[in-house]
């Protein structure tokens, strides 16, 4: 929306944008009503009861319990409506559908790096298809960042040492801003980019170009060899490390008697700080890879490990135990991606 050519309202380019904007206008209406009521009353009373002569005093009115109750209870009820509505929009924003297409983002001073499962890697630019839910798993290589798509009305912080995620479904082809919303040092304002929403066919065409080095999982498989992971983690289970076959989504027993669910966060921790959790029956022999492997390569490696568990859902980035669903697409044929 523009006035005299000046934009005053952001594009509505995702399915959320409408939900969020409707909520916004509801609250704006309610708040404007209260603000105007107070403003009109304050000005009216001020003029109507203006002091006319020196020494004049006001009427003796000390208060009124019914009025106090009224203007405590009514705002409380209205506030609860806002809370409930806001919470339901938020709940929706936080729940990516199981069939969402998966993209990985890594924040780094001062750029956004995106990886598509098909192997395309982009910096400060992101190409996505319209009309398809897209889940972005976000991590950071250094300090806090926040991946912000104003036209999609969503953002999430990139936190070092952790995976966070957001999802959206772009509804309108076009090019929109990507911002870093969490202050991250010198060139924070330069950590911006653009997301290009393409029609599905155009997106398929875009996928055809680029993507050297194979898919993310293929890159992960090469890293698996380069870092000699395969010399201990034998599929047979006879190696010095546990077999990684079909472990994603399972619960493993640890030497300290606890158990752990194998998900992204567990795999990440096991690679970076391998001594943190040792699977029962194995020795703490694995070196730590903290500082030796980049966030992007780590994601590729995890993607490879996930492909070794074909039963588990590929909708990674979620607690794996929660995701397996009979309808989840099975690797390596991700929906509509590998066929071309």
């Amino acid at each position, binding site marked *: 929306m523009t006035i005299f050519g000046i934009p005053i309202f952001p594009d509505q380019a995702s399915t959320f944008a409408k939900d969020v904007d409707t909520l916004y206008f509801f609250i704006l209406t309610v708040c404007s009503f209260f603000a105007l009521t107070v403003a009109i009353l304050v000005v009216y009373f001020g003029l109507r009861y203006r002091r006319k002569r020196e020494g004049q005093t006001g009427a003796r009115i000390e208060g009124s319990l019914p009025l106090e109750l009224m203007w405590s209870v009514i705002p409380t009820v209205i506030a609860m409506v*806002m809370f409930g*509505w806001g919470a339901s929009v938020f709940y929706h924003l936080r729940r990516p559908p199981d069939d969402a297409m998966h993209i990985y983002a890594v924040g780094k001073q001062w750029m956004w790096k995106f990886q598509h499962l098909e192997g395309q890697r982009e910096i400060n630019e992101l190409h996505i298809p319209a009309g398809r839910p897209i889940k972005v798993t976000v991590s950071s290589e250094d300090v806090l960042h926040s991946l912000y798509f104003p036209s999609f009305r969503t953002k999430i912080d990139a936190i070092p040492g952790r995976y966070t995620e957001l999802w959206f479904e772009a509804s309108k082809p076009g090019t929109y801003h990507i911002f870093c919303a969490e202050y991250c040092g010198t060139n924070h304002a330069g950590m911006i980019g653009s997301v290009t929403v393409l029609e599905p066919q155009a997106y398929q065409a875009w996928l055809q170009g680029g993507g050297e080095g194979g898919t993310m999982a293929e890159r992960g498989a090469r890293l698996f060899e380069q870092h000699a992971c395969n010399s201990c983690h034998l599929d047979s289970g006879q190696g010095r490390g546990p077999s990684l076959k079909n472990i994603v989504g399972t619960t493993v027993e640890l030497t300290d008697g606890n158990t752990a669910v194998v998900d992204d966060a567990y795999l990440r921790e096991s690679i970076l700080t391998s001594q943190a959790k040792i699977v029962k029956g194995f020795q703490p022999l694995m070196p730590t890879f903290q500082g030796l492997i980049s966030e992007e390569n780590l994601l590729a490696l995890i993607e490879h490990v996930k492909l070794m568990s074909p039963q588990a859902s590929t909708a990674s980035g979620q607690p794996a135990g929660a995701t397996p669903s009979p309808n989840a697409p099975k690797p390596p044929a991700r929906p509509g991606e590998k066929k071309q």
Partner: protein
Amino acid sequence: MLDKLRIPERHYLHEGHSLRSWLLTKDHKRIAIMYLMSISVMFFIGGLFAVGIRFELATPQGDFVTADTYNKFFTMHGIIMVFFFLIPSIPAVLGNFLIPPMIGARDLAFPRINLLSLYIYWIGGIFTIYAMITGGVDTGWTFYTPYSAAGSNSHVIPVALGIFIAGFSSILTGLNFIVTIHRMRAPGMTWFRLPLFVWAHYATSLVQVLGTPVIAITIVMLFVERAFGFGIFDPARGGDPVLFQHLFWFYSHPAVYIMILPALGVTSELVSTFSKKTIFGYSFVAFSSLAIAIFGFIVWAHHMFVAGISTYSAMVFSFLSFSVAIPSAVKVFNWTATLYKGAVSFETPMLYAYGFIGLFAIGGLTGLFLATLGLDIHVHDTYFVVAHFHYIMVGGAIMGYLGGLHFWWPKITGRMYNNFFSKVSAIMVFVGFNITFFPQFVVGYLGMPRRYHSYPDEMQVLNVMSSAGATVLGLGYVLPVIYFLLSLRRGRVAGPNPWGASGLEWQTQSPPLTENFVEIPIVTGEPYEYDHVPAKESHLV
């Protein structure tokens, strides 16, 4: 009658003129004056950084200063304004000066501790100014880890220590007020006869005493992290960067109420005095201050809805955040009702009170947008948030502070300031403020993130409006400095009670005696009794 008024011969300002008589004073009023001068200097410095920020943002390109300099500008602006101006502003100046005479006491409970708090404030300020002169700090006033611990190359430690030290000044002031209000009330000054200004300060003091130690602990943790590499916030060593945000906001959200509660107290005084009418719903207004102070402690994670906290804890904190809105709304409604059938006059302090109600209402209502989860995801960390908290902390707290200063200036100095220019200034501040910050709601919803040195071209017009408004606002702030200083020599003599106000502080001479009262008054009436007792004699036997 007016020309017969004279400045009394004996009063607190005449009790010695040497520097020593000021630096070693135990008089709460002299300490308040020294606080007034100190925070005015800090406000000026913080304001200069704001000028730099608005100058840079007049164009979309980062062309006025470098990105690093800009980052230091907004960081130093925030740190100085929050920790060295807003937090001490009303309590340390007006509260310090007025609480004893308002409750009929000769001084605060601990006069030496009061002086100590000022010295501690100075030491904290010196650390911060030292860091500023030697290169500044660029972490933002929020000091988020891991950037502040490992990323930034600027002077994080001296500034953090400065804030750590200044925090003790705030704790001591709060402690002093709590003890004073409990123990030093004049005979007959029951809790429900206390002026609402005192209730607001009581609530503020609770927050200062309970909250400030948490920021002190947080700063110590940041210090050992940065200086010795402890790893508390470093994920590579099992730490958690988000833990810092929890600790930081556990203090810094309640700190917002340290800034705004006293201003709410001032406004209650102004609305009642200039309507010549008792405040509507005294106990509701008094208890809403306490409610705000208490609820303020359980809403901190609403600063972290996109910082990776769980969906359900976000919902709990959203729900609790709405609870703060209710007592705030109750206050506004009660002020409005107080005007009804009043005898309203628009002296300068009342103009500020009107301005306060307007800006506080907008600031408070836009808080609802931010407490609403689905909406906060979009506007969090954008200029929408910047506009919201400036409406509360600048629009609210500074309007309250200036309103209070204009109201009690004749009590503090014995003289009146220029009536015309003070009204011009009040209007300029209100108008300038709105031109500056209202466009920021729009540019925030448009998506402009905060702390940006440069920004997309299409957002320029709104930013230019902001910068233009800031010029008007800045002039509105400079004007009082001039007419206040001029009033010291030329101002009309005010007399003990120029506004015909009912509070005890108006029953003594202006400027007051060092001991405030010749005889401790005995209170027999309710507060704000304007209707049946001539103001001059109310409360006094």
